[in-house]
């Protein structure tokens, strides 16, 4: 389900990068129908395709919530899956509101942000329902180390969220008020308001990713649950920085003179947002695992009070 949510993020990114957000003018119907498939050509292919994947993700989330309620004894887990259902419904409503109000940047940015948040929630559900979560970890982290790591991971997640909001705002203001939209905002104004802060914050995020990941690798190399996300974060950081530079070139340097979204622009910008989403989810998974591995159930992981943990 988390993998499908990532596919949904990609589908959503394709809609914006192809300027297809209003190719289907109505909601919640598509061209007046709730079930008929329209001709999947041009912008409709992206917009309606995005809606179809969203419906599947929504249905799966409901199935998982019902299943959890039936078989999972953990009350907090039942609550989390119910929150996931509420979240996907809210996300769907945001998507509809942005279409019906002709893509106001604030709602479109909220839709993008909530989308990535839901991806993190579904990734967390995948971790909480995995076999390794219920097994006793082979190695624990000392409390003093775990608290520092947790603090830095929260900082990283916070700055990643800021990065996400700035990036989404840049994309949607460009589409609505910039050269692809009403042309109310000149390019330099959009770049100064959103892109330069996004770039500055990227340096901060990069530094934090490097620090947190290297610290985890140096101090906890033997713990698979931390080693793997740390390595993945470092590798994705390099990819993401390269994608960010490429996105700047295709969107700002070349894009102002393009007559339509080019394959290069679409692929680079969608890849950039997808890798960003993956990095955010990895940071969330890492902080969840750090809480779990620190061995103090009630004080550190307050919602999992019933889990028995052997004292280290």
């Amino acid at each position, binding site marked *: 389900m988390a993998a499908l949510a990532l596919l949904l993020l990609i589908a959503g990114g394709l809609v914006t990068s192809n300027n297809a957000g209003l190719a289907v003018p109505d909601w919640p119907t598509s061209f007046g129908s709730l079930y008929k498939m329209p001709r999947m*050509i041009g912008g409709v292919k992206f*917009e309606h395709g995005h809606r179809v994947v969203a419906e599947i993700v929504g249905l799966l989330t409901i199935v998982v919530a019902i299943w959890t309620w039936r078989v999972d004894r953990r009350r907090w887990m039942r609550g989390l899956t119910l929150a996931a259902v509420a979240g996907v419904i809210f996300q769907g409503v945001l998507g509809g509101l942005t279409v*019906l109000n002709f893509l106001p940047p604030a709602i479109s940015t909220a839709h993008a942000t909530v989308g990535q948040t839901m991806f993190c929630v579904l990734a967390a559900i995948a971790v909480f329902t995995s076999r390794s979560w219920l097994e006793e970890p082979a190695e624990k982290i000392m409390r003093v180390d775990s608290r520092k790591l947790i603090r830095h991971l929260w900082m990283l997640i916070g700055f990643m969220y800021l990065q996400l909001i700035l990036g989404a705002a840049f994309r949607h203001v460009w589409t609505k008020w910039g050269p692809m939209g009403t042309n*109310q905002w000149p390019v330099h104004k959009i770049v100064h308001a959103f892109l330069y802060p996004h770039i500055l914050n990227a340096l901060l995020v990069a530094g934090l990713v490097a620090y947190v990941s290297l610290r985890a690798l140096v101090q906890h190399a033997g713990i698979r649950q931390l080693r793997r996300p740390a390595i993945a974060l470092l590798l994705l950081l390099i990819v993401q920085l390269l994608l960010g530079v490429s996105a700047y070139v295709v969107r700002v340097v070349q894009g102002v003179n*393009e007559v339509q979204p080019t394959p290069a622009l679409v692929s680079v910008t969608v890849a950039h947002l997808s890798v960003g989403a993956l990095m955010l989810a990895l940071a969330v998974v890492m902080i969840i695992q750090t809480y779990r591995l620190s061995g103090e159930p009630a004080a550190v992981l307050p919602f999992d009070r019933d889990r028995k943990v052997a004292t280290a």
Partner: protein
Amino acid sequence: MKNIVFVFLCGLGLCSAGCRQPQSSPAGSPSPVKQMMVTLDSATAGSIAGTISFQGPAIKLPAIDMTADPACPQKPQASDAIAIDHGKLANVFVYVKEGLPPGNYGIPTEPVVLDQKGCRYQPHMLGMVAGQPLQILNSDNADHNVHAMPVSNQPWNESQAAKDPAITKTFAKPEMMVAVQCNQHPWMRAYINVMANSYFAVSGADGKFEIRNLPPGQYTITAVHEKFGEQAARVIVASRQTAKADFTFHPAE
């Protein structure tokens, strides 16, 4: 748990507030006529004519690839955003900015036509009077959506399948350079200039324009291009004479 239910109910509330079909009614209604109607003496009317030129390094925009839709031309197409032919610039909107006697110049009842042909808007640049009907046709075998993005007027977005009947809209308030795009075919773009009167023209492929039936007087006319900005000129129109006003645009800095 209570918080979760609250959020869920808020989501349902948002859903019911948002679940509505987009409006298809014309965008607003013309404001009531308060000014005196201006009557023109055609016996003394003059005109302003000129040529729009472009000087500078040739700017070549990439060709448009329409292959995303099999119903559109499959060969690369030249963009109409910058149309320069032998140094003459087309699709420049020229209008009378200052100098007209104050008053109400009336609202033409004949519709202005915007067609979708060859997966392009035709014309690319047009002018109309606030309150005048805009008739949108789809002469293609392709489905389009027509998305107008005004700032001062009410935006709208409607789909128009191949050979669907014409859509008719109006704009209540004057507004310059209202962008119109098709989200089905993202290369399609047109500009509509909503004016308070009919004293405007669009330069043709030869760069020529003419604004007719002007009372004699001194005027400021402005020429606007979507990429190269705008220029103004002061012109004196004599009775039954055609005043000349040429403009030369340069590449944007």
